[in-house]
């Protein structure tokens, strides 16, 4: 690995980061128009669809809901769509668009997948191309890719309103938010995006299989399908559930380095945009920028560490004469730098797509994706979930240090009091509870120990990664773990469900509590929540509160993995 290569890798990281910062404002303004319920040019085309949906569903979009109503409608909708997808997966064998005659999915598998997609996790215990029909991929899964993204953004909107409004219980209407985000943001963006992907080589066909005879005369069965339409929302909605087992490493999902770069940008586009939307919503865009800078700081640090480690390669292979970057589980067209970047992006956001196999990353290179998720995926984060998760930490940071300026802590004009602290703590506790608690269960039970491919500390990392990914609703894996068993399907299903909704509900409750408060105008005596000091404080709080919780587990997983590796121990 030459130093020139190393530098160009860091250059890639910085160029990417700069572009994300540039995307924040346009996407933020677009989302802000939807947040406010303003008319956009798209309304002329899709307005009738929106109104038709409301009429058929008996929804009055102007009827504002309090946080309990908002949460209740949201939850019931999640349950309805889970049941729907569960049914489709179970009945796959008798449903149409299944030319390969794939059978229905087992109950635990179907339930796990339904939960995985409704929670925006898209954990995949199965290999897409070998298990799912085109109908299951489209109706069962693509549907959720849209709706889970829209739901995340809707919750973020409700929280924004909590900060922006005063002395009200109204947080907006869930159906209106969800429908508008889908119709006026996700769907039009995906139409354009999907067509770009097809033009770049991503298949889009209702056919399922092509038989080829290779140059050497062997038979190669090539699975195709409606990939582009799913790929677009998979990235934009930070879902990450691939059409194929290899996900965005598969040449059909991610054919070129440029598509790869666009995919990474699209993972961050809406999440970064929402920081700007937040600033607009609370009437001070600097608030939004401060959040974005804190996120990008953590991001650049993480990506740099991954690249630094991956570029150094696998020391255990050096004595075989295999030098250079760690290329096991990576594609040549992306190279190690773009793979390191992709791994950081996808775990910083709750995307879960992979363009390289995280399990084969170097110990520390794989630790950063793990750590990103353990922080709750708040570095840009999932669409909606990233910003509301981040705001939980902001509330905590304000409370920890805010007293130091001699005032009751305030954040963007709202006093942070016992109720908010209680709810924020509740939402944050769910991460260690599910990640560490369920990992502890899995590493002592035979059914859990049957999972890992690796032995030694890396085997522990595989289990830890699975529960981290599920709880944080990421969906990527140290895929050596055999997770398609009733034990893992069940436990990971629980982790995904709790990890999503035991955060969503407290967040909505916080929104309700904040909305009822008066607005306190900021002055020179107010705790400054813009500027370098605040950004530093945010980063420190996230690393200390979020990070320290997981230090023992990281020490026994990736850190031990790294250090035993440095001592040339193989497992």
């Amino acid at each position, binding site marked *: 690995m030459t130093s020139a290569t190393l530098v160009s890798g860091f250059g890639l990281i910085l160029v990417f980061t700069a572009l994300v910062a540039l995307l924040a404002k346009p996407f933020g303004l677009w989302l802000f128009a939807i947040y406010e319920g303003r008319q956009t040019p798209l309304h002329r085309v899709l307005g009738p669809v929106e109104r038709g949906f409301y009429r058929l569903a008996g929804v009055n979009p102007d009827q504002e809901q309090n946080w309990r109503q908002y949460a209740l409608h949201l939850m019931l*909708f999640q349950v*309805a769509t889970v049941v729907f997808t569960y049914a489709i997966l179970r009945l796959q064998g008798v449903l149409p668009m299944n030319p390969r005659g794939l059978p229905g999915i087992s109950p635990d598998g179907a339930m796990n997948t339904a939960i995985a997609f409704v929670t925006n996790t898209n954990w995949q215990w199965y290999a897409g191309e*070998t298990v799912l029909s085109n109908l299951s991929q489209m109706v069962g899964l693509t*549907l959720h890719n849209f709706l889970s993204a829209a739901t995340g953004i809707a919750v973020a909107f409700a929280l924004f309103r909590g900060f922006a409004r005063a002395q009200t219980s109204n947080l907006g209407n869930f159906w209106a938010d969800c429908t508008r985000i889908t119709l006026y943001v996700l769907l039009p963006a995906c139409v354009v995006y999907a067509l770009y992907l097809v033009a*770049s080589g991503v298949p889009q066909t209702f056919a399922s299989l092509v038989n080829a005879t290779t140059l050497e005369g062997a038979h190669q069965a090539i*699975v195709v399908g409606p990939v582009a339409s799913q790929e677009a929302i998979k990235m934009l909605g930070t879902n990450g559930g691939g059409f194929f*087992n290899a996900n965005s490493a598969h040449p059909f999902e991610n054919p070129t380095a440029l598509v790869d770069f666009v995919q990474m940008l699209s993972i961050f586009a809406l999440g970064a945009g929402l920081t700007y939307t937040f600033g607009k919503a609370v009437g001070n865009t600097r608030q939004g920028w401060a959040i974005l800078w804190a996120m990008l700081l953590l991001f650049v640090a993480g990506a740099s560490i991954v690249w630094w480690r991956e570029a150094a390669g696998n020391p255990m292979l050096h004595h*075989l004469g295999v030098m250079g970057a760690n290329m096991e589980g990576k594609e040549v067209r992306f190279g190690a730098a773009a793979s390191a970047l992709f791994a950081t992006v996808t775990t910083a956001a709750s995307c879960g797509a992979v363009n390289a196999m995280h399990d084969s990353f170097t110990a520390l290179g794989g630790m950063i994706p793990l750590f990103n998720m353990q922080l709750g995926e708040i570095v840009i984060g999932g669409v909606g979930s990233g910003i509301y998760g981040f705001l939980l930490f902001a509330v905590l940071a304000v409370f920890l240090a805010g007293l130091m300026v001699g005032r009751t802590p305030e954040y963007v004009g709202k006093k942070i009091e016992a109720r908010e602290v209680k709810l924020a703590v509740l939402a944050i506790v769910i991460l260690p509870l599910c990640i560490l608690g369920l990992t502890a269960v899995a590493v002592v039970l035979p059914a859990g120990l049957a999972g890992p491919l690796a032995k030694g*500390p890396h085997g522990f990392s595989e289990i830890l990664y699975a529960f981290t990914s599920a709880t944080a609703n990421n969906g990527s894996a140290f895929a050596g773990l055999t997770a398609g068993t009733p034990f893992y399907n069940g436990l990971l299903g629980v982790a995904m469900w709790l990890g999503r909704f035991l955060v969503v509900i407290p967040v909505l409750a916080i929104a309700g509590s904040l909305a009822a408060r008066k607005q306190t105008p900021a002055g020179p005596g107010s705790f400054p929540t813009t500027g370098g000091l605040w950004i530093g404080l945010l980063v420190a709080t996230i690393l200390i509160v979020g990070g320290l919780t997981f230090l023992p587990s990281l020490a026994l997983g990736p850190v031990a993995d790294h250090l035993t590796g440095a001592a040339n121990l193989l497992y």
Partner: protein
Amino acid sequence: MTSAINRELVAALRPSLVMTGLFAGLLGLAYPAAITGIAQVAFPWAANGSLVTEHGQVIGSDLIGQGFASPRYFHGRPSAAGSAGYDASASAGSNLAPSSQALHDRVAGAVKDIAATSPGSPVPPDLVTTSASGLDPHISPEAAFFQVDRVAAARGLPRETVRALVTAQVEQPLLGLLGEPRVNVLRLNRALDEATVSRAQGH
């Protein structure tokens, strides 16, 4: 309290069920169908898998790697897709950790095999490591040049001719930043076949 929640639940029931159905129709059927329709008209080749045909016979996809074992062909990377590798209906990486004995042994084996056919050092890392998808269509230029002697000898082609073929197939990173220098193995091997045929005809 309870009755209020019950009332709200009833109120939420209809939109929950109806919206599920409507969105399933719009996002699960209409949207992919529309994209498929446009794609099939506008980008038919790409939309159907960038298939490469020869004499009306599909020989593979331009984007999907395929297995090469003969010394007459450039070899792609080791593949963990399917039991025999390069199974385009079962994409997969090895998922072996750097600290894995199995990885170490496999790479050691691959290095030994390569050393037997193409002596030289250092071994290009991509040639002894499996890709993420198991379907990686590319190898690095180093990995291609590494095999030139072997291929040239097996084909009875001048080394320089083969080198030129490789050089012609090297793709550079976009804007010098995106991606790595690479060679599409299927394209290279087809060019190789063509060159061999034309040379045979030329003789």
